[in-house]
Protein backbone atom coordinates (compact mmCIF):
# COMPACT_ATOMS: atom_id res chain seq x y z
CA UNK A 1 0.00 0.00 0.00
CA UNK A 2 1.19 3.50 -0.77
CA UNK A 3 1.94 5.82 2.15
CA UNK A 4 -1.08 7.93 3.13
CA UNK A 5 -1.40 11.40 1.61
CA UNK A 6 -2.65 12.74 4.95
CA UNK A 7 -1.57 11.28 8.22
CA UNK A 8 -3.12 12.62 11.39
CA UNK A 9 -1.11 11.19 14.23
CA UNK A 10 -2.42 11.41 17.79
CA UNK A 11 -3.67 14.96 17.40
CA UNK A 12 -5.21 16.82 20.34
CA UNK A 13 -6.47 20.40 20.28
CA UNK A 14 -7.62 22.05 23.47
CA UNK A 15 -9.52 25.32 23.78
CA UNK A 16 -9.06 26.22 27.42
CA UNK A 17 -10.01 23.17 29.46
CA UNK A 18 -12.00 21.28 26.86
CA UNK A 19 -10.43 19.14 24.18
CA UNK A 20 -12.15 19.94 20.88
CA UNK A 21 -10.13 17.20 19.22
CA UNK A 22 -8.96 14.39 21.47
CA UNK A 23 -6.19 11.94 20.48
CA UNK A 24 -7.32 11.57 16.89
CA UNK A 25 -5.39 9.43 14.42
CA UNK A 26 -6.56 9.06 10.82
CA UNK A 27 -4.72 8.02 7.67
CA UNK A 28 -6.21 9.23 4.40
CA UNK A 29 -5.10 7.60 1.16
CA UNK A 30 -4.39 9.44 -2.09
CA UNK A 31 -7.47 9.95 -4.29
CA UNK A 32 -9.87 9.20 -1.50
CA UNK A 33 -13.05 11.16 -0.96
CA UNK A 34 -12.93 11.23 2.81
CA UNK A 35 -15.67 12.59 5.06
CA UNK A 36 -15.48 13.74 8.66
CA UNK A 37 -18.98 13.23 9.98
CA UNK A 38 -20.48 14.22 13.29
CA UNK A 39 -22.90 16.50 15.09
CA UNK A 40 -22.03 20.15 15.57
CA UNK A 41 -19.36 20.64 18.21
CA UNK A 42 -17.82 17.19 17.67
CA UNK A 43 -14.48 18.68 16.58
CA UNK A 44 -14.66 17.87 12.88
CA UNK A 45 -14.25 21.49 11.76
CA UNK A 46 -11.38 22.05 14.19
CA UNK A 47 -9.67 19.00 12.73
CA UNK A 48 -10.16 20.32 9.20
CA UNK A 49 -8.80 23.72 10.23
CA UNK A 50 -5.71 22.00 11.62
CA UNK A 51 -5.20 20.35 8.22
CA UNK A 52 -5.47 23.79 6.59
CA UNK A 53 -3.13 25.36 9.14
CA UNK A 54 -5.55 27.76 10.83
CA UNK A 55 -5.20 25.94 14.14
CA UNK A 56 -2.11 24.33 15.65
CA UNK A 57 -2.49 21.05 17.55
CA UNK A 58 -1.48 20.92 21.20
CA UNK A 59 -0.26 17.38 20.72
CA UNK A 60 0.41 15.08 17.83
CA UNK A 61 1.55 15.56 14.26
CA UNK A 62 0.00 16.18 10.88
CA UNK A 63 1.84 14.84 7.84
CA UNK A 64 0.84 15.71 4.31
CA UNK A 65 2.44 13.58 1.62
CA UNK A 66 5.09 12.54 4.10
CA UNK A 67 6.08 16.06 5.19
CA UNK A 68 5.46 17.26 8.73
CA UNK A 69 3.05 20.20 8.37
CA UNK A 70 2.10 20.56 12.03
CA UNK A 71 3.55 24.06 12.37
CA UNK A 72 3.63 25.21 8.75
CA UNK A 73 1.46 28.32 8.13
CA UNK A 74 -1.57 27.96 5.83
CA UNK A 75 0.00 29.83 2.92
CA UNK A 76 2.81 27.26 2.68
CA UNK A 77 0.75 24.09 2.76
CA UNK A 78 -0.07 22.05 -0.34
CA UNK A 79 -3.76 22.04 0.62
CA UNK A 80 -6.61 24.37 -0.26
CA UNK A 81 -9.96 24.88 1.31
CA UNK A 82 -13.51 25.60 0.24
CA UNK A 83 -15.05 27.57 3.09
CA UNK A 84 -18.54 27.09 4.42
CA UNK A 85 -19.38 30.71 3.61
CA UNK A 86 -17.38 30.26 0.35
CA UNK A 87 -15.46 33.47 1.30
CA UNK A 88 -15.40 34.55 -2.33
CA UNK A 89 -13.77 37.99 -2.60
CA UNK A 90 -16.71 40.37 -3.21
CA UNK A 91 -14.71 43.16 -4.83
CA UNK A 92 -13.17 40.91 -7.48
CA UNK A 93 -14.68 39.42 -10.61
CA UNK A 94 -15.06 35.67 -10.95
CA UNK A 95 -11.92 35.62 -13.07
CA UNK A 96 -9.89 37.65 -10.55
CA UNK A 97 -11.10 35.41 -7.74
CA UNK A 98 -9.96 32.30 -9.57
CA UNK A 99 -6.64 33.87 -10.59
CA UNK A 100 -5.89 35.14 -7.08
CA UNK A 101 -3.98 32.11 -5.79
CA UNK A 102 -1.66 32.10 -8.80
CA UNK A 103 -1.16 35.86 -8.85
CA UNK A 104 0.06 36.02 -5.26
CA UNK A 105 2.56 33.34 -6.25
CA UNK A 106 3.81 35.57 -9.05
CA UNK A 107 2.43 33.48 -11.91
CA UNK A 108 1.22 35.63 -14.80
CA UNK A 109 0.96 35.89 -18.55
CA UNK A 110 0.00 32.96 -20.76
CA UNK A 111 0.24 30.35 -18.03
CA UNK A 112 -2.09 32.29 -15.77
CA UNK A 113 -4.62 32.73 -18.58
CA UNK A 114 -4.48 29.08 -19.55
CA UNK A 115 -4.93 27.81 -16.02
CA UNK A 116 -7.75 30.25 -15.27
CA UNK A 117 -9.54 29.12 -18.45
CA UNK A 118 -9.01 25.51 -17.42
CA UNK A 119 -10.33 26.05 -13.91
CA UNK A 120 -13.37 28.01 -15.11
CA UNK A 121 -14.17 25.30 -17.66
CA UNK A 122 -13.89 22.65 -14.98
CA UNK A 123 -16.69 24.25 -12.94
CA UNK A 124 -18.55 25.44 -16.06
CA UNK A 125 -18.30 29.14 -15.33
CA UNK A 126 -16.65 30.27 -18.60
CA UNK A 127 -19.51 32.63 -19.36
CA UNK A 128 -19.46 34.26 -15.94
CA UNK A 129 -15.84 35.37 -15.76
CA UNK A 130 -16.60 39.10 -15.75
CA UNK A 131 -19.35 38.89 -13.13
CA UNK A 132 -19.02 40.07 -9.56
CA UNK A 133 -19.98 37.59 -6.82
CA UNK A 134 -23.15 39.51 -5.95
CA UNK A 135 -24.41 38.75 -9.45
CA UNK A 136 -24.09 34.99 -8.88
CA UNK A 137 -26.35 32.43 -7.26
CA UNK A 138 -25.23 30.46 -4.22
CA UNK A 139 -24.34 27.44 -6.35
CA UNK A 140 -22.29 29.56 -8.74
CA UNK A 141 -20.44 31.22 -5.87
CA UNK A 142 -19.55 27.79 -4.61
CA UNK A 143 -18.17 26.87 -8.03
CA UNK A 144 -16.00 29.98 -7.88
CA UNK A 145 -14.70 28.87 -4.49
CA UNK A 146 -13.99 25.40 -5.92
CA UNK A 147 -12.21 26.71 -9.03
CA UNK A 148 -10.21 29.14 -6.92
CA UNK A 149 -8.96 26.29 -4.72
CA UNK A 150 -8.43 23.70 -7.48
CA UNK A 151 -6.40 26.05 -9.70
CA UNK A 152 -3.62 25.74 -7.11
CA UNK A 153 -3.44 21.99 -7.83
CA UNK A 154 -3.43 21.11 -4.13
CA UNK A 155 -2.50 17.66 -2.88
CA UNK A 156 -5.62 17.72 -0.73
CA UNK A 157 -8.81 19.75 -1.13
CA UNK A 158 -10.58 20.54 2.13
CA UNK A 159 -14.33 21.18 2.06
CA UNK A 160 -16.07 22.66 5.09
CA UNK A 161 -19.79 21.83 4.98
CA UNK A 162 -19.75 22.54 1.25
CA UNK A 163 -23.45 21.98 0.62
CA UNK A 164 -25.10 23.30 3.76
CA UNK A 165 -25.94 26.71 2.29
CA UNK A 166 -27.72 25.32 -0.78
CA UNK A 167 -31.35 24.36 -1.12
CA UNK A 168 -32.32 20.69 -1.44
CA UNK A 169 -32.46 20.31 -5.24
CA UNK A 170 -29.23 22.20 -5.78
CA UNK A 171 -27.58 20.24 -3.00
CA UNK A 172 -28.34 16.94 -4.70
CA UNK A 173 -27.01 18.29 -7.98
CA UNK A 174 -23.81 19.58 -6.38
CA UNK A 175 -23.28 16.24 -4.61
CA UNK A 176 -23.00 14.53 -7.98
CA UNK A 177 -20.94 17.38 -9.37
CA UNK A 178 -18.41 17.23 -6.53
CA UNK A 179 -17.99 13.49 -6.95
CA UNK A 180 -17.54 13.94 -10.73
CA UNK A 181 -14.99 16.69 -10.12
CA UNK A 182 -13.07 14.55 -7.67
CA UNK A 183 -12.82 11.74 -10.24
CA UNK A 184 -11.80 14.21 -12.91
CA UNK A 185 -9.00 16.00 -11.04
CA UNK A 186 -7.84 12.97 -9.06
CA UNK A 187 -7.21 15.03 -5.93
CA UNK A 188 -7.87 13.79 -2.42
CA UNK A 189 -10.99 15.45 -1.00
CA UNK A 190 -11.55 15.78 2.73
CA UNK A 191 -15.05 16.96 3.53
CA UNK A 192 -16.60 17.98 6.82
CA UNK A 193 -20.32 17.44 7.15
CA UNK A 194 -23.02 16.90 9.72
CA UNK A 195 -25.33 15.41 7.10
CA UNK A 196 -25.08 11.61 7.16
CA UNK A 197 -26.81 11.18 3.79
CA UNK A 198 -24.29 13.53 2.21
CA UNK A 199 -21.40 11.60 3.71
CA UNK A 200 -22.82 8.20 2.73
CA UNK A 201 -23.57 9.17 -0.85
CA UNK A 202 -20.35 11.06 -1.59
CA UNK A 203 -17.47 9.67 0.42
CA UNK A 204 -15.39 6.51 -0.05
CA UNK A 205 -14.61 6.46 3.63
CA UNK A 206 -16.08 8.20 6.62
CA UNK A 207 -14.78 8.98 10.10
CA UNK A 208 -17.62 9.41 12.59
CA UNK A 209 -16.71 11.81 15.38
CA UNK A 210 -18.31 12.66 18.69
CA UNK A 211 -16.96 14.82 21.52
CA UNK A 212 -13.59 15.21 19.85
CA UNK A 213 -13.01 11.49 19.38
CA UNK A 214 -13.17 9.29 16.32
CA UNK A 215 -15.59 6.43 16.98
CA UNK A 216 -15.36 4.52 13.72
CA UNK A 217 -13.63 4.87 10.37
CA UNK A 218 -15.14 2.79 7.60
CA UNK A 219 -16.69 2.79 4.16
CA UNK A 220 -20.36 3.85 3.98
CA UNK A 221 -21.80 0.35 3.79
CA UNK A 222 -19.82 -0.92 6.76
CA UNK A 223 -20.83 2.11 8.80
CA UNK A 224 -24.47 1.52 8.01
CA UNK A 225 -24.59 -2.26 8.39
CA UNK A 226 -21.84 -2.81 10.95
CA UNK A 227 -21.69 0.18 13.27
CA UNK A 228 -19.45 -0.51 16.24
CA UNK A 229 -21.02 2.02 18.58
CA UNK A 230 -24.57 2.82 19.52
CA UNK A 231 -23.80 6.48 18.67
CA UNK A 232 -22.73 5.57 15.14
CA UNK A 233 -25.77 3.35 14.63
CA UNK A 234 -28.12 6.08 15.79
CA UNK A 235 -26.36 8.98 14.03
CA UNK A 236 -26.26 7.26 10.66
CA UNK A 237 -29.73 6.50 9.44
CA UNK A 238 -32.49 5.46 11.80
CA UNK A 239 -32.30 2.51 14.11
CA UNK A 240 -34.32 0.58 16.68
CA UNK A 241 -32.25 0.06 19.82
CA UNK A 242 -33.18 -2.61 22.38
CA UNK A 243 -31.53 -2.94 25.78
CA UNK A 244 -30.51 -6.53 26.22
CA UNK A 245 -28.81 -8.76 28.70
CA UNK A 246 -25.70 -10.47 27.33
CA UNK A 247 -25.53 -14.06 28.51
CA UNK A 248 -22.31 -15.14 26.86
CA UNK A 249 -19.99 -14.18 24.05
CA UNK A 250 -18.29 -16.44 21.60
CA UNK A 251 -16.08 -15.02 18.83
CA UNK A 252 -18.18 -12.93 16.45
CA UNK A 253 -21.43 -13.90 18.22
CA UNK A 254 -23.19 -13.20 21.46
CA UNK A 255 -26.01 -14.96 23.26
CA UNK A 256 -28.48 -12.33 24.41
CA UNK A 257 -31.77 -12.19 26.26
CA UNK A 258 -34.62 -9.78 25.72
CA UNK A 259 -38.22 -10.05 27.05
CA UNK A 260 -39.67 -9.80 23.53
CA UNK A 261 -37.13 -11.80 21.58
CA UNK A 262 -36.32 -14.45 24.12
CA UNK A 263 -32.79 -15.88 24.21
CA UNK A 264 -31.14 -15.72 20.79
CA UNK A 265 -27.72 -15.55 19.17
CA UNK A 266 -26.78 -12.33 17.37
CA UNK A 267 -23.72 -10.90 15.71
CA UNK A 268 -21.29 -8.80 17.72
CA UNK A 269 -20.07 -5.48 16.25
CA UNK A 270 -16.55 -5.83 17.62
CA UNK A 271 -14.61 -8.34 19.73
CA UNK A 272 -14.54 -5.98 22.72
CA UNK A 273 -18.33 -5.56 22.89
CA UNK A 274 -19.49 -7.48 25.96
CA UNK A 275 -22.41 -5.30 27.00
CA UNK A 276 -24.62 -3.00 25.02
CA UNK A 277 -27.73 -2.70 22.93
CA UNK A 278 -29.08 -4.62 20.00
CA UNK A 279 -29.85 -2.50 16.98
CA UNK A 280 -32.07 -3.14 13.97
CA UNK A 281 -32.65 -0.89 10.98
CA UNK A 282 -36.33 -0.07 10.29
CA UNK A 283 -36.17 -1.46 6.75
CA UNK A 284 -34.92 -4.82 8.04
CA UNK A 285 -38.11 -5.33 10.05
CA UNK A 286 -41.12 -6.78 8.28
CA UNK A 287 -44.63 -5.57 8.85
CA UNK A 288 -46.79 -8.61 8.60
CA UNK A 289 -50.54 -9.03 8.99
CA UNK A 290 -51.19 -12.65 8.30
CA UNK A 291 -48.42 -14.41 6.40
CA UNK A 292 -46.53 -17.20 8.18
CA UNK A 293 -43.06 -16.42 9.52
CA UNK A 294 -40.08 -16.65 7.22
CA UNK A 295 -37.53 -19.25 8.29
CA UNK A 296 -36.00 -18.30 11.64
CA UNK A 297 -38.06 -15.12 11.95
CA UNK A 298 -39.43 -13.97 15.29
CA UNK A 299 -42.97 -12.58 15.14
CA UNK A 300 -44.11 -9.96 17.64
CA UNK A 301 -47.64 -8.67 18.20
CA UNK A 302 -47.93 -4.91 18.13
CA UNK A 303 -50.34 -1.99 17.73
CA UNK A 304 -49.82 0.62 15.02
CA UNK A 305 -49.47 4.02 16.71
CA UNK A 306 -48.53 6.47 14.00
CA UNK A 307 -47.62 6.61 10.33
CA UNK A 308 -45.32 9.07 8.56
CA UNK A 309 -45.89 9.01 4.79
CA UNK A 310 -42.99 10.17 2.57
CA UNK A 311 -44.28 9.07 -0.82
CA UNK A 312 -41.62 6.56 -1.74
CA UNK A 313 -41.70 5.05 1.71
CA UNK A 314 -43.61 5.23 4.96
CA UNK A 315 -42.45 4.95 8.54
CA UNK A 316 -44.78 2.92 10.70
CA UNK A 317 -44.44 3.38 14.45
CA UNK A 318 -45.70 0.44 16.48
CA UNK A 319 -45.78 -0.48 20.16
CA UNK A 320 -45.47 -3.96 21.57
CA UNK A 321 -47.56 -5.10 24.60
CA UNK A 322 -44.58 -4.65 26.96
CA UNK A 323 -44.24 -1.01 25.91
CA UNK A 324 -41.30 -1.37 23.49
CA UNK A 325 -41.62 1.06 20.58
CA UNK A 326 -40.40 -0.01 17.15
CA UNK A 327 -40.07 1.81 13.86
CA UNK A 328 -40.54 -0.03 10.57
CA UNK A 329 -40.07 1.41 7.10
CA UNK A 330 -42.25 0.17 4.28
CA UNK A 331 -41.40 0.85 0.66
CA UNK A 332 -44.40 1.78 -1.44
CA UNK A 333 -43.38 -0.33 -4.41
CA UNK A 334 -46.79 -0.98 -5.88
CA UNK A 335 -49.36 1.63 -6.98
CA UNK A 336 -52.20 -0.82 -6.43
CA UNK A 337 -51.01 -1.45 -2.87
CA UNK A 338 -53.71 -0.97 -0.26
CA UNK A 339 -51.37 1.40 1.54
CA UNK A 340 -50.27 1.69 5.13
CA UNK A 341 -52.16 0.16 8.05
CA UNK A 342 -54.46 2.46 9.98
CA UNK A 343 -53.34 3.83 13.31
CA UNK A 344 -54.73 1.69 16.11
CA UNK A 345 -54.85 -1.52 14.10
CA UNK A 346 -53.17 -4.68 15.26
CA UNK A 347 -50.23 -6.04 13.34
CA UNK A 348 -47.28 -8.34 13.61
CA UNK A 349 -43.65 -7.41 13.26
CA UNK A 350 -41.16 -9.86 11.84
CA UNK A 351 -37.57 -9.68 13.07
CA UNK A 352 -34.84 -11.97 11.81
CA UNK A 353 -31.92 -12.50 14.24
CA UNK A 354 -29.49 -12.15 11.30
CA UNK A 355 -30.53 -8.47 11.02
CA UNK A 356 -29.72 -7.74 14.65
CA UNK A 357 -26.36 -6.47 15.81
CA UNK A 358 -24.98 -6.09 19.31
CA UNK A 359 -23.15 -2.76 19.60
CA UNK A 360 -21.24 -1.16 22.44
CA UNK A 361 -22.67 1.84 24.23
CA UNK A 362 -19.33 3.57 24.86
Amino acid at each position, binding site marked *: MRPPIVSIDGVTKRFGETAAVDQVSIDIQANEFFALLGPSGCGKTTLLRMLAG*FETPNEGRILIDGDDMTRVPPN*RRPVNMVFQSY*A*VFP*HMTVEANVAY*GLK*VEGIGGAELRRRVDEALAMVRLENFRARKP*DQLSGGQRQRVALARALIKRPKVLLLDEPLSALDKKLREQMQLELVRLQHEVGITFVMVTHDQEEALSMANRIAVMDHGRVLQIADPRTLYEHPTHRFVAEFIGTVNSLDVEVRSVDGPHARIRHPLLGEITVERAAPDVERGVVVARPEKLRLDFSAPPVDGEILLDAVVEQIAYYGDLSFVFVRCPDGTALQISRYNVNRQDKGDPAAGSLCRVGIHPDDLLLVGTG
Partner: protein
Amino acid sequence: MARSRPGPLDYTRRWWLRFWLLATFVFLYAPIVILVVFSFNDSRRNIVWQGFTTDYYVRALNNLSLLEAFGNSLTIALLSTVISTVLGGLLALGLYRFRFPGRSSVEAASALPIVVPEICMGVALLVFFAEIGWRPGLPWPLSLANIVAGHVAFSFPFVAVVVRARLAGFDRAQEEASKDLGASEWQTFRYVTLPFMKPGLIAGALLAMTLSLDDFVITFFTSGPDTLTFPVKVYSMVRFGATPEVNAASTVLIAVTVLLTILAVRLQRPDKGVA
Protein backbone atom coordinates in the same frame (compact mmCIF):
# COMPACT_ATOMS: atom_id res chain seq x y z
CA MET B 1 -58.75 58.06 -15.38
CA ALA B 2 -59.99 58.28 -11.83
CA ARG B 3 -57.24 58.61 -9.29
CA SER B 4 -57.29 55.91 -6.70
CA ARG B 5 -56.85 56.64 -3.05
CA PRO B 6 -53.18 56.48 -2.07
CA GLY B 7 -52.19 53.16 -0.53
CA PRO B 8 -50.40 52.96 2.79
CA LEU B 9 -46.98 53.00 1.15
CA ASP B 10 -47.67 55.73 -1.41
CA TYR B 11 -46.00 58.37 0.71
CA THR B 12 -45.34 60.70 -2.16
CA ARG B 13 -49.02 60.95 -3.04
CA ARG B 14 -50.13 62.47 0.25
CA TRP B 15 -50.13 66.23 -0.03
CA TRP B 16 -49.25 66.90 3.61
CA LEU B 17 -46.25 64.62 3.40
CA ARG B 18 -45.11 66.43 0.29
CA PHE B 19 -45.56 69.71 2.07
CA TRP B 20 -43.56 68.44 5.01
CA LEU B 21 -40.76 67.35 2.71
CA LEU B 22 -40.73 70.73 1.02
CA ALA B 23 -40.70 72.57 4.35
CA THR B 24 -37.76 70.46 5.49
CA PHE B 25 -35.78 71.33 2.40
CA VAL B 26 -36.58 75.02 2.72
CA PHE B 27 -35.47 74.93 6.33
CA LEU B 28 -32.23 73.17 5.41
CA TYR B 29 -31.25 75.05 2.31
CA ALA B 30 -32.86 78.49 2.32
CA PRO B 31 -30.01 80.12 4.31
CA ILE B 32 -27.45 78.64 1.94
CA VAL B 33 -29.36 79.69 -1.15
CA ILE B 34 -29.68 83.23 0.21
CA LEU B 35 -25.96 83.29 1.01
CA VAL B 36 -25.10 82.25 -2.53
CA VAL B 37 -27.61 84.61 -4.17
CA PHE B 38 -26.45 87.63 -2.20
CA SER B 39 -22.82 86.91 -3.07
CA PHE B 40 -23.82 88.31 -6.48
CA ASN B 41 -25.57 91.36 -4.99
CA ASP B 42 -24.28 94.69 -6.26
CA SER B 43 -24.43 96.43 -2.91
CA ARG B 44 -22.12 97.08 0.01
CA ARG B 45 -24.78 95.94 2.38
CA ASN B 46 -26.25 92.48 2.37
CA ILE B 47 -29.90 93.37 2.86
CA VAL B 48 -31.52 94.65 -0.33
CA TRP B 49 -31.02 93.20 -3.80
CA GLN B 50 -29.49 95.91 -6.00
CA GLY B 51 -28.41 94.04 -9.13
CA PHE B 52 -26.13 91.28 -10.37
CA THR B 53 -22.36 91.51 -10.13
CA THR B 54 -19.37 89.23 -9.77
CA ASP B 55 -17.29 92.05 -8.35
CA TYR B 56 -17.14 90.57 -4.91
CA TYR B 57 -15.66 87.32 -6.23
CA VAL B 58 -12.94 89.35 -7.88
CA ARG B 59 -12.45 91.27 -4.70
CA ALA B 60 -12.33 88.12 -2.59
CA LEU B 61 -9.81 86.61 -5.01
CA ASN B 62 -7.66 89.71 -4.65
CA ASN B 63 -7.89 89.72 -0.87
CA LEU B 64 -4.46 88.35 -0.09
CA SER B 65 -5.06 87.60 3.55
CA LEU B 66 -8.29 85.79 2.68
CA LEU B 67 -6.42 83.75 0.08
CA GLU B 68 -3.68 82.99 2.57
CA ALA B 69 -6.28 81.85 5.09
CA PHE B 70 -7.89 79.66 2.45
CA GLY B 71 -4.54 78.14 1.56
CA ASN B 72 -3.85 77.47 5.23
CA SER B 73 -7.24 75.80 5.64
CA LEU B 74 -6.69 73.57 2.64
CA THR B 75 -3.19 72.60 3.77
CA ILE B 76 -4.39 71.82 7.29
CA ALA B 77 -7.39 69.89 5.98
CA LEU B 78 -5.26 67.84 3.62
CA LEU B 79 -2.63 66.96 6.22
CA SER B 80 -5.08 66.23 9.00
CA THR B 81 -7.24 64.13 6.67
CA VAL B 82 -4.34 61.96 5.58
CA ILE B 83 -3.11 61.47 9.14
CA SER B 84 -6.57 60.86 10.64
CA THR B 85 -7.50 58.42 7.89
CA VAL B 86 -4.38 56.34 8.51
CA LEU B 87 -4.73 56.52 12.31
CA GLY B 88 -8.49 55.97 12.30
CA GLY B 89 -8.25 53.08 9.84
CA LEU B 90 -5.54 51.37 11.89
CA LEU B 91 -7.49 51.88 15.10
CA ALA B 92 -10.61 50.38 13.56
CA LEU B 93 -8.64 47.43 12.21
CA GLY B 94 -6.93 46.85 15.55
CA LEU B 95 -10.21 46.95 17.45
CA TYR B 96 -11.82 44.63 14.91
CA ARG B 97 -8.97 42.17 14.70
CA PHE B 98 -7.61 41.72 18.20
CA ARG B 99 -9.04 40.65 21.51
CA PHE B 100 -6.98 42.10 24.34
CA PRO B 101 -7.60 43.11 27.94
CA GLY B 102 -9.07 46.59 28.17
CA ARG B 103 -10.25 46.46 24.57
CA SER B 104 -13.65 47.96 25.32
CA SER B 105 -12.03 50.73 27.37
CA VAL B 106 -9.74 51.56 24.47
CA GLU B 107 -12.72 51.64 22.17
CA ALA B 108 -14.65 53.96 24.49
CA ALA B 109 -11.65 56.20 25.11
CA SER B 110 -10.95 56.53 21.41
CA ALA B 111 -14.50 57.69 20.77
CA LEU B 112 -14.31 60.29 23.53
CA PRO B 113 -13.24 63.21 21.32
CA ILE B 114 -16.55 62.81 19.47
CA VAL B 115 -18.57 63.61 22.58
CA VAL B 116 -16.26 66.00 24.44
CA PRO B 117 -17.55 69.55 23.79
CA GLU B 118 -15.37 71.27 21.23
CA ILE B 119 -14.80 74.25 23.48
CA CYS B 120 -13.25 71.94 26.09
CA MET B 121 -11.04 70.33 23.47
CA GLY B 122 -10.00 73.80 22.36
CA VAL B 123 -9.08 74.94 25.84
CA ALA B 124 -7.37 71.63 26.57
CA LEU B 125 -5.25 71.89 23.43
CA LEU B 126 -4.41 75.52 24.20
CA VAL B 127 -3.25 74.60 27.68
CA PHE B 128 -1.42 71.54 26.35
CA PHE B 129 0.53 73.46 23.73
CA ALA B 130 1.39 76.16 26.27
CA GLU B 131 2.49 73.51 28.74
CA ILE B 132 4.86 71.76 26.35
CA GLY B 133 6.24 75.14 25.39
CA TRP B 134 5.02 75.23 21.79
CA ARG B 135 6.30 78.47 20.33
CA PRO B 136 4.32 80.30 17.67
CA GLY B 137 6.14 82.11 14.92
CA LEU B 138 7.71 79.12 13.16
CA PRO B 139 8.16 79.27 9.34
CA TRP B 140 5.06 78.46 7.28
CA PRO B 141 4.17 74.81 7.09
CA LEU B 142 5.51 74.21 10.61
CA SER B 143 3.38 77.04 11.96
CA LEU B 144 0.34 74.93 11.10
CA ALA B 145 1.60 71.84 12.89
CA ASN B 146 -0.23 72.41 16.15
CA ILE B 147 -3.51 73.14 14.34
CA VAL B 148 -3.07 69.95 12.31
CA ALA B 149 -2.42 68.02 15.52
CA GLY B 150 -5.59 69.49 17.04
CA HIS B 151 -7.65 68.59 13.99
CA VAL B 152 -6.29 65.05 13.89
CA ALA B 153 -7.18 64.64 17.56
CA PHE B 154 -10.86 65.31 16.98
CA SER B 155 -11.33 63.85 13.50
CA PHE B 156 -9.60 60.45 13.59
CA PRO B 157 -12.23 58.96 15.94
CA PHE B 158 -14.85 59.73 13.30
CA VAL B 159 -12.83 57.83 10.73
CA ALA B 160 -12.41 54.95 13.18
CA VAL B 161 -16.16 54.78 13.86
CA VAL B 162 -17.05 54.74 10.16
CA VAL B 163 -14.42 52.13 9.25
CA ARG B 164 -15.34 49.98 12.25
CA ALA B 165 -18.97 49.95 11.13
CA ARG B 166 -17.82 48.85 7.69
CA LEU B 167 -15.63 46.08 9.11
CA ALA B 168 -18.51 44.71 11.16
CA GLY B 169 -19.83 43.23 7.92
CA PHE B 170 -16.51 41.60 6.98
CA ASP B 171 -16.39 37.82 6.67
CA ARG B 172 -13.10 36.92 8.30
CA ALA B 173 -13.02 33.71 6.30
CA GLN B 174 -11.99 35.94 3.39
CA GLU B 175 -8.67 36.63 5.09
CA GLU B 176 -8.26 32.93 5.80
CA ALA B 177 -9.14 32.10 2.21
CA SER B 178 -6.50 34.53 1.01
CA LYS B 179 -3.80 32.96 3.17
CA ASP B 180 -5.02 29.50 2.24
CA LEU B 181 -4.48 30.44 -1.40
CA GLY B 182 -0.86 31.28 -0.68
CA ALA B 183 -0.96 35.00 0.08
CA SER B 184 1.27 36.47 2.77
CA GLU B 185 -0.06 38.57 5.63
CA TRP B 186 0.74 41.76 3.73
CA GLN B 187 -0.75 40.54 0.43
CA THR B 188 -3.91 39.56 2.30
CA PHE B 189 -4.19 43.03 3.79
CA ARG B 190 -3.39 44.76 0.52
CA TYR B 191 -5.68 42.74 -1.78
CA VAL B 192 -8.51 41.58 0.50
CA THR B 193 -8.89 43.58 3.71
CA LEU B 194 -7.99 47.03 2.42
CA PRO B 195 -10.33 46.91 -0.61
CA PHE B 196 -13.12 45.94 1.75
CA MET B 197 -12.30 48.86 4.06
CA LYS B 198 -11.99 51.31 1.16
CA PRO B 199 -15.55 52.70 1.09
CA GLY B 200 -15.35 53.25 4.84
CA LEU B 201 -11.94 54.91 4.53
CA ILE B 202 -13.18 57.24 1.80
CA ALA B 203 -16.29 58.17 3.74
CA GLY B 204 -14.22 58.69 6.88
CA ALA B 205 -11.64 60.79 5.02
CA LEU B 206 -14.39 62.96 3.57
CA LEU B 207 -15.85 63.44 7.01
CA ALA B 208 -12.45 64.34 8.43
CA MET B 209 -11.83 66.79 5.60
CA THR B 210 -15.16 68.55 6.08
CA LEU B 211 -14.70 68.69 9.84
CA SER B 212 -11.25 70.19 9.42
CA LEU B 213 -12.17 72.70 6.68
CA ASP B 214 -14.90 74.39 8.66
CA ASP B 215 -13.59 73.97 12.17
CA PHE B 216 -13.62 77.23 14.07
CA VAL B 217 -13.46 76.64 17.81
CA ILE B 218 -10.44 74.35 18.07
CA THR B 219 -8.55 76.27 15.42
CA PHE B 220 -9.28 79.54 17.17
CA PHE B 221 -7.75 78.23 20.37
CA THR B 222 -4.72 76.54 18.86
CA SER B 223 -3.67 78.96 16.15
CA GLY B 224 -1.07 81.58 16.95
CA PRO B 225 -1.74 85.28 16.37
CA ASP B 226 -0.20 85.17 12.90
CA THR B 227 -1.92 82.07 11.54
CA LEU B 228 -5.40 82.51 10.11
CA THR B 229 -7.59 79.78 8.70
CA PHE B 230 -10.55 80.40 6.47
CA PRO B 231 -13.33 80.15 9.09
CA VAL B 232 -11.37 82.32 11.51
CA LYS B 233 -10.73 84.90 8.79
CA VAL B 234 -14.40 84.96 7.76
CA TYR B 235 -15.32 85.47 11.39
CA SER B 236 -13.01 88.45 11.67
CA MET B 237 -14.40 89.89 8.42
CA VAL B 238 -17.98 89.53 9.62
CA ARG B 239 -17.12 91.51 12.72
CA PHE B 240 -16.67 94.52 10.44
CA GLY B 241 -19.95 93.89 8.66
CA ALA B 242 -21.20 91.03 6.54
CA THR B 243 -20.29 92.24 3.07
CA PRO B 244 -21.03 90.22 -0.09
CA GLU B 245 -17.31 89.51 -0.14
CA VAL B 246 -17.82 87.19 2.81
CA ASN B 247 -20.71 85.61 0.95
CA ALA B 248 -18.54 85.12 -2.11
CA ALA B 249 -15.77 83.50 -0.08
CA SER B 250 -18.25 81.23 1.67
CA THR B 251 -19.83 80.25 -1.66
CA VAL B 252 -16.41 79.16 -2.88
CA LEU B 253 -16.02 77.01 0.23
CA ILE B 254 -19.44 75.45 -0.31
CA ALA B 255 -18.54 74.72 -3.92
CA VAL B 256 -15.29 73.06 -2.84
CA THR B 257 -17.08 70.87 -0.28
CA VAL B 258 -19.83 69.86 -2.71
CA LEU B 259 -17.22 68.99 -5.33
CA LEU B 260 -15.31 66.90 -2.81
CA THR B 261 -18.50 65.07 -1.87
CA ILE B 262 -19.34 64.32 -5.49
CA LEU B 263 -15.80 63.11 -6.02
CA ALA B 264 -15.95 60.84 -3.00
CA VAL B 265 -19.27 59.36 -4.09
CA ARG B 266 -17.83 58.78 -7.57
CA LEU B 267 -14.79 57.07 -6.09
CA GLN B 268 -16.96 54.74 -4.09
CA ARG B 269 -19.15 53.80 -7.03
CA PRO B 270 -17.17 50.81 -8.35
CA ASP B 271 -17.52 49.27 -4.92
CA LYS B 272 -21.21 49.78 -4.49
CA GLY B 273 -21.89 46.13 -5.16
CA VAL B 274 -19.73 45.05 -2.25
CA ALA B 275 -21.94 43.56 0.37
